[in-house]
């Protein structure tokens, strides 16, 4: 387009006139090739001119970025509809994926001051799902915390029950997820947005939060439990998907979930039971044991699954075995654990080995045991550290990750190898045995 505009602009000179004629011929030829130019008799608009001639997607994007701000609505409709605007729709060839992507990238590159008023205006107009979906996508790629409410307005419920069309629901979650991932300040606004949003949007907010793998998002998910009872099953399900939680401050999440173990609705109890299991909530074991004789079969089965998850033991569907296991574990914790964990933290040689061996036989409150071994990593001799690395690998607790990362720099090659192995086992991530590679997982 730049080439055609430059050569085709009337400048009064003969050479310019020739260039204009050539430009028009080329433009006409290009139009004929694509069969999708402006209305008959009218000169092609800036956007149509951008599509003229040979161009790569990058070139097309560059040309579209340079159009005037007044062309934004046209550009937006082009991104939404996938066809060049202004012509006879039947005669237009649809844009291919690369061209459409170039249009979207060009829109995203526009300054926010140009886009936001336009999108704000769109939110006040009758709902057209394809335009709203495009607007969501656009906000997702350029929006920040300030635009969350605009995103919600664009996704307003469309029926009397407050339901949102599925495609807008998914678009909202994706856009909000992208904003939350890009702008940390957006997380602070989620609670407020949740309170103000109609029910149809609340589940999409939860889905957006669930897509964010951060402890802050986990805590917000936990906080939202109980605020809209209809949404609790979804919140429990999404919390459960976050796996074993060991970040600081997640005790409140555990407590929020545990409250649902005492509910009367079996579906809700089942969801909470499964969540406790998947989150690895040792503190819920006592309540889970109490649910072993629940009248609902789904709850009972869920309890077995949860106990297996928490303990790492496969005692089957036998309540008596689980009860017995729990009693022996609590007895051990009450009578022996304190001394043994102290020996692990401070002991040396045989004393340490004996204490470690006994502690590793116990599967309840594994993180507390792991904490003791993590202490050893910092102060123990090489042999103790080596054993502690192996113990942490066995315990699969994330509490040991920072210490294990430091061990990757140990002078002893055996310690380095054991720490690397433990890190891979705990995190499930395959990274090279270098501290820098693991730094992001140090928490």
């Amino acid at each position, binding site marked *: 387009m730049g080439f055609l505009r430059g050569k085709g602009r009337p400048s009064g000179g003969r050479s310019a006139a020739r260039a204009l004629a050539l430009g028009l011929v080329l433009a006409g030829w290009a139009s004929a090739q694509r069969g999708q130019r402006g209305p008959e008799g009218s000169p092609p608009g800036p956007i149509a001119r951008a599509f003229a001639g040979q161009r790569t997607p990058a070139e097309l994007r560059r040309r579209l970025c340079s159009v005037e701000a007044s062309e934004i609505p046209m550009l937006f409709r082009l991104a939404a509809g996938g066809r060049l605007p202004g012509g006879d729709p039947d005669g237009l060839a649809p844009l291919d994926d690369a061209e459409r992507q170039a249009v979207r990238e060009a829109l995203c590159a526009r300054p926010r001051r140009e886009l936001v008023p336009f999108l704000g205006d769109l939110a006040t107009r009758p709902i057209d799902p394809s335009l709203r979906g495009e607007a969501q996508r656009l906000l997702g790629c350029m929006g920040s915390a300030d635009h969350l409410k605009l995103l919600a307005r664009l996704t307003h419920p469309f029926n009397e029950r407050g339901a949102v069309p599925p495609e807008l629901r998914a678009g909202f979650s994706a856009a909000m997820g992208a904003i939350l991932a890009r702008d940390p300040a957006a997380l602070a606004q989620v609670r407020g947005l949740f309170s103000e949003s109609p029910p149809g949007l609340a589940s999409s907010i939860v889905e957006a939060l669930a897509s964010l793998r951060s402890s802050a998002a986990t805590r917000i998910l936990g906080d939202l439990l109980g605020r809209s009872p209809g949404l609790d099953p*979804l919140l429990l399900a999404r919390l459960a998907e976050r796996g074993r939680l060991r970040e600081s401050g997640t005790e409140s999440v555990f407590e929020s979930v545990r409250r649902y173990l005492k509910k009367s609705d079996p579906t809700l109890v089942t969801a909470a039971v499964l969540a406790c299991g998947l989150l690895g909530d040792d503190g819920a074991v006592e309540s889970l044991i109490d649910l072993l004789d629940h009248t609902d079969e789904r709850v009972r089965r869920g309890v077995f699954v949860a106990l297996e998850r928490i303990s790492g033991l496969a005692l089957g569907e036998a309540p008596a075995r689980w009860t017995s296991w729990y009693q022996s574990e609590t007895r051990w914790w009450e009578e022996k654990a304190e001394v043994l964990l102290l020996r692990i933290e401070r002991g040396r040689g045989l004393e340490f080995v004996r204490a470690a061996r006994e502690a590793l036989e116990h599967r309840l409150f594994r993180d507390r045991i792991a904490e003791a071994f993590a202490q050893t990593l910092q102060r123990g001799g090489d042999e103790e550290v080596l054993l502690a690395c192996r113990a942490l690998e066995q315990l699969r607790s994330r509490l040991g990750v920072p210490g294990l990362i430091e061990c990757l720099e140990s002078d002893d090659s055996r310690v380095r190898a054991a720490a690397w192995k433990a890190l891979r086992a705990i995190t499930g991530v395959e990274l090279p045995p270098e501290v820098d590679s693991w730094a992001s997982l140090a928490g």
Partner: protein
Amino acid sequence: MQLGKHAGSVRTGSRRGSALVLSLVAVATVVVLSASFSQFASAVANRQTQAVHRKRAFYLAEAGLSEAFAGFSCGKSGSVGSLTEPARLGDGLFWVEAVELDEDVVRLESTGMIGTGSAKLSLVVRRGEESVAALGVFSTGQVTLGPGSLVDAYDSTKGDYTTQADKSGAALGSNAGISVTGSLAEPSVVKGDVTPGTNQTVSTSGSVTISGSTSPALSDTVLPAVDVPVLKLGSPQVHGSPYPLVIPAGGAGYQALTVQAGAQVIIQGPAQVVLGSLTLEATAELSFDTTKGPVELYVTDALDLATGSLLSSSSTSPEDVLIQVPGVTAQAIELRASGPFHGVIYAPETPVVVGGEFELFGALVAQKLTFEGASSLHFDKHLAELAAELALPVVLSWRLVEIENTSGDLSVDPFDLLGVVKNLLPPPSGAHADQTLSVDYYDFSNAYHRYTGLESQFDWNVVKSVITATRDGEEVLFPTSTTSKLGTKKSPGVAPIVDGPMI
């Protein structure tokens, strides 16, 4: 003094005799020690030899189990040889007895013998399961494709559908006729084989492109019945809340589930869900959350996905979502939902109508299949690989039954012990129990043959390639084959040469 001298001579004589006695005692001791040592060494060697025989017998029994399992995998009974005619392997022998414990569960008991060693091992195996997903798009009744239909293939393990250049390899089949219609504006395309039933044809009208063969099937395909899990069904549910209804992982069932406009139901895997009927109104959504495991949905009475409704899955692996309709429903199943759905739909006794907006990534099998408009079915070729894996038997348990020496005499030979002539015994591959073999094959001159009779009377050396084969009705799998079974077997288009006994 004399007395003393006499006394001294007596002492001298006594000393001489004692040397002899001492020598004799020493010699006797050495002899006894040597004999004892020899005896001990012989006993140790004997024990060591017996231990070696036991170990070798153990390996022979293992070889027997392997041979039986390999045979079992390709439709044989699992019995190899017998006590009266065992299989010979090296200097030893083995035989395997197959005992049917339960439906599709068989115990293989292998006895190996060599020298004085004897070992018996037991393996319990379950026959492989039949999967219909490899059939692609299949119907036992008529298949009708409307204008704008697209049936193609991709491989979900090789990335997104849109990124794959090769879309060939689709399988569209039926036990009846297949009709494909297209128009200039809406051409219909099948990128692969279209296989009508035996003696049936593919009829096309308008703009239709079929890239593969349209020759009919070799034989009718029998679809296995659906086993519905027994679950207590809850009362009918009408879900219209703006909050999603979440069905948690595990087992759940409702007599009916209606999802009203704009509402959403999420089924969390791993789960088995049984529904009497399932209705999705326009803009309602049914989501399958398979991040923690697959979802199996059984709908027994009616399945209606209205135009504008949405089926979605968190995974793009079709094997993660299986929708099954076990019996005959009062009305045809209507799949008019929009959007891409990754899964397998299996309704062997019910007609299915596919709406114009429905786009399936996976496989679809029904009693009768009608594509109303420009619907797209993308067959996932990875399903065929999974089906091939699923068809292999599964080992449930292994145990050592006994291991012993049949005799303390090392010269004992198991062949003598059983009263068999070593050189007359068959090798392991020839010792499998005889079965009725039914095979369609091409010989080396590419002539099409069919043989039905005892396998012992069939000469496999005349076979160039097998079209299809069964042993006692069980399909013969060829584990060494590099390609998975896709779609239905094609008829060669000519009458076979029927073979009689060859051996």
